[in-house]
């Protein structure tokens, strides 16, 4: 089955599939960065693959190993229909850390991509809300990069530290409710 998935991707995308490896049934497919959105959309919508579940989007910093590209963005896909998995990897260079978003393919990619941006500083082109999700908004740098000092902290003493996760119109509703209560 792993061979079938690999063949199908190679058949569809040819040289955009850079490398295929299959360790003990864990299929990993490296994809050229400019085709990754097409590949992901194909993985989901192809009626033989049907990878309808985006389990995780994460990244790796290969700086200690040297070589290029420095980063890899990793997509873990699962098919609820066929019960198969695939791991899609995309090399991302340090000097231009941008990848096309997958939010329009799977909505679930939204927060995963924000996490990758927060931790590794890799931006996702076309993401609807590309900002930090785990660290506070005063944070500088990207802590899972290997050259980030592990205990370097940035103070966050803003009183509305979590309110920025609330949609502006919802925040307005909350404020008016509080004002209403205070005036009675």
């Amino acid at each position, binding site marked *: 089955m792993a061979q079938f998935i690999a063949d199908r991707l190679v058949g569809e995308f040819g040289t955009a599939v850079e490398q295929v490896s299959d360790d003990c049934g864990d299929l990993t497919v490296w994809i050229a960065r400019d085709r990754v959105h097409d590949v992901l959309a194909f993985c989901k919508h192809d009626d033989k693959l049907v990878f309808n579940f985006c389990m995780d989007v994460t990244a790796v910093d290969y700086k200690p190993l040297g070589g290029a590209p420095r980063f890899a963005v990793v997509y873990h896909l699962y098919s609820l229909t066929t019960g198969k998995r695939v791991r899609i990897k995309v090399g991302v260079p340090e000097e231009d850390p941008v990848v096309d978003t997958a939010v329009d393919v799977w909505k679930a990619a939204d927060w995963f991509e924000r996490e990758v941006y927060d931790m590794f500083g890799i931006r996702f082109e076309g993401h609807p809300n590309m900002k930090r999700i785990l660290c*506070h908004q005063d944070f500088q740098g990207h802590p899972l990069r290997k050259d980030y000092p592990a*205990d370097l902290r940035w103070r966050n003493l803003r009183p509305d530290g979590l309110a920025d996760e609330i949609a502006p119109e919802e925040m307005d509703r909350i404020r008016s409710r509080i004002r209403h209560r205070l005036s009675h």
Partner: protein
Amino acid sequence: MGLSPEPTDQSVFTTALDKMVSWARSGSLWPLPFGTACCAIEFMSVVSSHYDLARFGAEVVRFSPRQSDLMIVAGTVTDKQAPVLKLIYEQMCEPKWVISMGVCASSGGFYRAYHVLQGIDEVVPVDIYVPGCPPTPEGLIYAIIKLQEKIQRGAPSRYQEIQRASEADAVLEPAGA
């Protein structure tokens, strides 16, 4: 405190008002749990039937800071959460006390990292630190007994100490000096 000199009426005590108030306060602590991690599970154990914090006069756990005078911070507090902790603390009625439960709240614990307060005393004044990861229920009960002793002595809370120190500073160094 002293017994009434009247031998017929030994149920009457005489005392100073402050002592009476301190004694009453120490036996009617209303804890507010700020539970963020596994320490909060131990806290639940302490207030449940087996360890039963009610035996020590601190059983009325409130989830509103405006009804509590003892905040028990049980767990890791991240930099992102620090303003929330401070906001909740500031809403509590005075006099108020804080117990820092477990090493994460006390010093950051093993989170010597980019995202965790290295002790909640960066943000709020702490009266009692409880070591352990997590502390045993006995450990937290011991901390509460220690706090009750402190209150009965009439000692100022850490919050009051800091306030008085800053007032003294203001007298010693007037603004603009």
